[in-house]
């Protein structure tokens, strides 16, 4: 990549920050150059972020229609999935899958709720609530 080719596409995901890239100057030697974003990279990031947002919206709908528990919403909102939530809480994946069922979740002990709340860094009171809109 030539220094002149370093993309400056003002990616929204950078929130005004700049990243350092390495590129070749006219004399053939390398130098560090700040980039405000690359459209290609931004598209990939945006796709992943949109997917996460969509999952959160689905989780809210599923909660209000009684299909899943509040845990599903908090999991998606904190950008976790069953695998990573299992690693972060120490619960088995099958336990988490059960906790995603409203009836099971409503009967969870305070101890287990506290583990989830601590992982999301919220209170147990907040853990049982889901907003109407994201």
């Amino acid at each position: 990549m030539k220094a002149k080719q370093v993309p400056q596409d003002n990616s929204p995901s950078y929130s005004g920050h700049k990243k350092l890239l390495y590129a070749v100057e006219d004399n053939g030697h390398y130098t560090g150059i700040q980039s405000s974003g690359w459209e290609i990279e931004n598209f990939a990031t945006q796709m992943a972020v949109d997917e996460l947002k969509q999952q959160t919206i689905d989780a809210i709908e599923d909660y209000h229609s009684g299909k899943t528990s509040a845990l599903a919403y908090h999991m998606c909102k904190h950008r976790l999935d069953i695998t990573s939530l299992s690693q972060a809480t120490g619960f088995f994946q099958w336990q988490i899958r059960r906790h995603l069922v409203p009836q099971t979740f409503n009967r969870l002990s305070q101890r287990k709720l506290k583990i989830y709340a601590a992982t999301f860094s919220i209170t147990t009171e907040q853990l049982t609530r889901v907003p109407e809109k994201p």
Partner: protein
Amino acid sequence: MSEIVNHLRHQQSSHCETGVVSNMLSSKGFAMSEPMAFGLASALTFAYLPFVKMAGLPLIAYRMPPKSIIKSVAKKLNIELMSQRFSSPPKGMQALDKALEEGHIVGLQTSVYWLPYFPEDMRFHFNAHNLTVYGKNQQGDYLISDPVFEEVVTCSPEDLERARFAKGALAPKGLMYILGEIPDNIDLAPQIYKAIKKTAKMMNGIPIPGIPFFGVKGIHYLAKKIVELENKPSKYARLYLGHIVRMQEEIGTGGAGFRFIFASFLDESSKLTGDSELFELSQFVTEIGDQWRSFAVQAVLFCKDRKSISLQDISDVLIKCAEMEKQLQSRLLSLSAFK
């Protein structure tokens, strides 16, 4: 609360770990650039890890695992590296305070997700982000040099504690490290050749049949996986390709999965040793990096639903990358310090 500000020279970097190494060494009076740290640690590689999932997609790494860079640079330069993990968060924070009071600059492993100064769209659960703490202000907030940011930042003790003790894959467990004294006369030249040899050897992958996940073999394997996406739902194919591009470009790689940083290392080495062959190699690695970037372009064009590009085309670009890296390997291996 009294203020502590230890001497630190902050310079922005592409990648967190090499950036921390470069900043810590430079602050201690031994100027080392980020690419030099990257190259000396033989950090360049390729790994496709189908059993490590991130958001349900396989992990693709372009460098050696976390903490290996700081370890091997310290070893090469014969500097003592004192590192500590903690089982209890309060103890971890006390140890950090104590080290700061003693005048050290302290490297930490943290989780990106819990660091409040990161932009929203870049916060994800990645537990191996490195940064340097160099002091504490009067409000009790920590003064932090995060190498991927332009300027130094601050972070409250609560947030920093959460980031240091995040759980999950690659959990930092409060890891902190301090560099010892730097020896007087360091001769980098022989180390450079050794490090390049090691990188070249790793490019072939692991010499065990049936493990096609590393080095050039790994790239061929990924190319095959991309063709196989044909039989998957189109949404999965798009997310998968987008995921590769993010791993390659977004996640602090300095572009093209660290290939440009490595090229910059070769360029710097050629200046240092006066070996013009290293400069030629640097130009070749630049071409490889450009090839990786054109792979990213093709992959994203496919995601945008351009019918003109097939998965086979994308796979072919990647195979070209693999072939070029194979050539690079033989050229690196035939390199000699004695002309």
